[in-house]
């Protein structure tokens, strides 16, 4: 922040006069700094493996628990029309798988930090 802007936008000082300020005395958008952004994405990227492990591990745990409970329950086969109803839960599975891999890939493959300090 040690150089003047080089852009053609050069608003008059009153540009920010009409902006309400909050408890900290500055408009909200003044707080949207590169430092905060960099910190946010750096922390998220650092959590990527943990998110992977959490998702896979916990998902497996829940599914195994449900399967075990279901086997122990020894329930009879319901009528076919009733047995088909839970299949609706499977519809979004491919979408969630794509989202999971896509998020992991985006976080892994991209250098998201701006490197600008304010």
């Amino acid at each position, binding site marked *: 922040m040690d150089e003047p802007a080089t852009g053609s936008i050069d608003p008059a000082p009153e540009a920010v006069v009409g902006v309400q300020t909050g408890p900290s005395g500055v408009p909200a*958008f003044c707080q949207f700094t590169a430092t905060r952004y960099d910190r946010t994405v750096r922390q998220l990227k650092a959590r990527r493996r943990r998110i992977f492990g959490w*998702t896979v591990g916990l998902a497996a745990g829940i599914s195994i628990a449900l399967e075990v409970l279901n086997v122990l329950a020894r329930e009879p086969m319901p009528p076919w029309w009733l047995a088909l109803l839970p299949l609706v839960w499977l519809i979004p599975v491919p979408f969630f798988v794509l989202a999971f891999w896509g*998020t992991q890939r985006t976080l892994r493959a991209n250098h998201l930090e701006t490197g600008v300090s304010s």
Partner: protein
Amino acid sequence: MTARTVIFQITAIGRNYRAIAESARSVLYWARHTPRQGFVPRLWLVVEPEGYASSPSTYESLRSEGARLLVVPRNYTTPLGTRGKARALQYASDQRVEEGLSNAEVWVYHQDEETCVGQDTFAGISDFIRGPKLVGVGVILYPIDWSGSPSHIQEVTRSYDDFRVLDSMTMPKNPSAGFHGSHILVRADVEDVVGWDSIGYSPAEDLTFEIRVRSRFGPVFGVLKGFAYEKGAFSLRDQLRQRRRWMHGVLFAVRRSPELPRDRRLSLAYSAISWFSALPSIAVLVASLAFHYGPALLVTGIFTGFIWVSMVTAYLEGYRMHAEYLERRIPLIQFVAFGLVGAFIDAIAPWYALVSRPSLGDFIAKDRPAGAAATPRSHLPRSGIRSVPARGAIASSSIASEPPRTTA
């Protein structure tokens, strides 16, 4: 060599004039406070006459501060007769062509009325325009006017989901149909060649645009660093109406977009069906209390854990992404309870879209009511712009027909 120019273009009806003023001033502020940005920033406000008439003094004030104001003339028509936001976007495109701004040195950064930018947005744009890609899309946060309401908690999941959007969009065929209407950066000549014109009302003009760009230029989409900062719907009713509009956009694209390739049509239809399945899923879950599905659960149980954990992760990580911008946390119990309410609204939204339709000027408030005090739960400093009383409208056509005014 000509200096690169980035037009920050806010395109909206214009009735949320305080939100627009705030967005515009975020651009003006960071244009002044960002050194070595590597481009010449310009600010264009593209609004409808009724939007301008809602607060002429606000718009004139923004004009005096450096914004270029384009009020779309009432009698402006496109060759294909498109309406709604696409018409306004096409009007701005026509202006660029007319003024010689449609070339490889000019970029357009698209903002909704409530899209504020930050220093990181400027840095991301500066980085992107030096690269080979022609269209950039980034992650949007929703910290502005945050109150911790159900609709605001639901919104944080969208930020985390944006990483899925970015991945899908940068793949050759955009398999999970992701795109944004705001926080996108497009090289002007690409945008102006493709255009926004289509037959009649296009509720999914951003999706149509993405399809056209991909079909004409191939996989030219890249990740735009930096966040944009928006605000969630103020009420559950507005959240419902906003989602209804999205679903209408998707259904419109699936059924009536001739440019949509077959595989894209299928993936888009699948996305819609996935969304539709949310409400029946809840109904079947509730029904399980009365009925016993028995061995059928052996099949579904394999995937149940993954879906549950994925959903919870979206809330947790979405909230963590916002944490840097929220001054006070909300209690966990409130987060869970309100999150369930917000999720339920999202579940019923596609079905609501089947039985009702948005009007052309479907208005969703983004301005906190004037004079409304910040709630005690407010986590960010109030960032609204003081509304200025309207002092009479200036004929909109005279604004639009003014000689081009650069911000230089």
